[in-house]
């Protein structure tokens, strides 16, 4: 714009009239990007170039001889702007012409123009006009998009930054300052690295070298929180703005993924634990199966026995899963076993169940459930529950320190003339050997004349140290 203004001034300086037209013409023709027009001192158009036709819509033949006021808005005309502009140009040697202009079709555009008096004041003026609407819209959009960026960058929970492709920061969002307690000033350049965990700094910097090659930055690292000094895991990403070649301006974010990472780790532990429990349970099932197989005289016997044991194991597993494998209530365990055999609370005449609430750790509950199953099965087959006046009482208490459990299984009202059975049942083996082996329980079994008596005394773990 200024170059043309200069050239036109040079041409017009020497001109005294139409004779300069020969010089002016090529200049006008070659600058069709601009509307260039000449006018008399009173504003009658004398020259109208192709650029003017393109921009304003009037053909040269249409407008030459008419007032230039046509291209001003009605408001400006009413306010006497065209004349004021000419007066300014005469007084100052030029007048800026930045205002809305009107095309032939009535549409408006934002013009960036200048009005120059010709050296020969009698010859009038030259006006150069450029359409700035596009540029203005672009600038407006840029401004809006920068405002949008600021708004987003300063209101999302992520820590936002602008950086060079080398990782040298040029700007950090207020969230960065709040989270790290480090000002934008101390964080610019590579200052931000101070907030990264010392063990993660090498990787963090190395990734910037990689980013220059790949055009994308990504790292997971720990950033120190100012409030409590905790290093929290963040996912940091950055990309160049636009897709220009070798873009110098990158934008990045750091997202706090600390809790997500903790959850993921906890989940991995849980999955491993689940795998462990499942395999352990299968190992127990396998052992019970082999044990039952060795002791069975027929396939029918095996089927009945194994099924019963599997059900008992299933019941205690069900209870454990309901309490997230923390503990099982002793009373619930006993009731479930008896009810599975059609005995239990509704059978008060025969059965007494009494004792305080006891939380059994999972492993003890499992073995105890198997033992109780065998005892119940035996009581139903040969013991108290086969006799009309037989009685079964299951009672327990805790010793003063609450950590010692004493459980009594007591059958009465039967004639046990045969004494101790010749074949040691699995139930007795579990009580006499498994409970002492696994829980250092002390157990006593007595085959009294009126029925089986069994005493189990075991140490309960402190509640916070229960471990399956």
């Amino acid at each position: 714009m200024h170059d043309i203004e200069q050239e036109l001034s040079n041409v017009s300086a020497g001109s005294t009239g139409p004779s300069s037209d020969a010089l002016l013409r090529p200049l006008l023709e070659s600058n069709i990007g601009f509307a260039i027009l000449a006018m008399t001192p009173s504003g009658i158009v004398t020259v109208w170039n192709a650029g003017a036709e393109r921009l304003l819509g009037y053909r040269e033949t249409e407008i030459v001889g008419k007032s230039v006021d046509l291209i001003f808005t009605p408001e400006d005309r009413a306010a006497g702007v065209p004349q004021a502009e000419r007066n300014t140009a005469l007084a100052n040697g030029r007048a800026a012409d930045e205002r809305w202009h009107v095309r032939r079709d009535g549409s408006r555009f934002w013009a960036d123009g200048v009005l120059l008096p010709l050296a020969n004041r009698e010859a009038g003026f030259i006006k150069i006009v450029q359409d700035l609407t596009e540029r203005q819209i672009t600038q407006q959009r840029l401004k809006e998009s920068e405002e949008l960026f600021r708004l987003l960058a300063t209101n999302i929970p992520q820590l936002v930054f602008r950086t060079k492709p080398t990782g040298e920061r040029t700007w950090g969002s207020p969230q960065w300052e709040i989270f790290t307690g480090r000002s934008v000033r101390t964080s610019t350049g590579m200052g931000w690295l101070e907030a990264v965990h010392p063990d993660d700094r090498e990787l963090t910097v190395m990734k910037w070298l990689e980013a220059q090659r790949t055009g994308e930055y990504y790292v997971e690292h720990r950033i120190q929180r100012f409030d409590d000094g905790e290093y929290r895991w963040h996912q940091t990403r950055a990309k160049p703005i636009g897709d220009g070649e070798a873009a110098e301006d990158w934008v990045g974010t750091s997202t706090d993924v600390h809790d997500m990472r903790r959850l993921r780790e906890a989940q991995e532990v849980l999955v491993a634990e689940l795998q462990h429990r499942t395999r352990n349970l299968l190992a127990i099932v396998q052992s019970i199966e082999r044990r039952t197989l060795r002791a069975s005289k027929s396939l029918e016997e095996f089927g009945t026995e194994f099924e019963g044991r599997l059900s008992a194991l299933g019941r205690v597993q069900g209870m454990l899963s309901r309490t997230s494998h923390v503990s099982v209530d002793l009373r619930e365990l006993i009731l479930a076993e008896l009810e599975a055999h059609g005995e239990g609370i509704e059978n008060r005449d025969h059965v007494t169940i009494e004792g305080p609430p006891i939380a059994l750790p999972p492993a003890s509950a499992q073995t105890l459930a198997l033992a109780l199953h065998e005892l119940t099965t035996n009581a139903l087959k040969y013991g108290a529950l086969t006799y009309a006046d037989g009685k079964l009482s299951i009672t327990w208490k805790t010793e003063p320190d609450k950590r010692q459990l004493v459980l009594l299984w007591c059958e009465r009202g039967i004639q046990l003339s045969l004494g101790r059975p010749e074949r040691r049942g699995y139930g007795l083996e579990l009580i006499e050997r498994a409970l002492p082996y696994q829980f250092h329980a002390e157990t006593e079994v007595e085959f009294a004349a009126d029925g089986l008596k069994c005493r189990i005394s075991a140490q309960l773990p402190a509640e916070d140290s229960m471990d399956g």
Partner: protein
Amino acid sequence: MGSAVSQSLAGRLILLVEDEYVVAIDLAQSLEQLGAVIVGPAGSVEDALALIMAGPPIDAALLDVNLGSERVYPVADVLQARGVPYVFTTSYGNWIIPTPHSSAPWCEKPVNIAHLVRILSSLPTAAKGA
């Protein structure tokens, strides 16, 4: 399992460490049927170490990695020092076994007896009296 396999375990003293009684007794009986002599079973590190110190020199050991709230590795350390070969049983997979013992053979739970016997038979002979 043919008699050739049983032969290889005949008379061999095998320390069994497993905290779950039901599983321990079953493994003991299964190996005894094949001629092995079981030392134990022990359900804790303490009991296992006591058996190693007190008993006759053992030929091999079967170690359950997870013994309730503790891990079996102190037992493995002692066996390694004495040149006694050992096999782990684990319900976690072998990733849980730490470096000094990670090259030891291992068996997944539930244990396949035939597979276990193959591993036990292929173990090098213990340096007795070490």
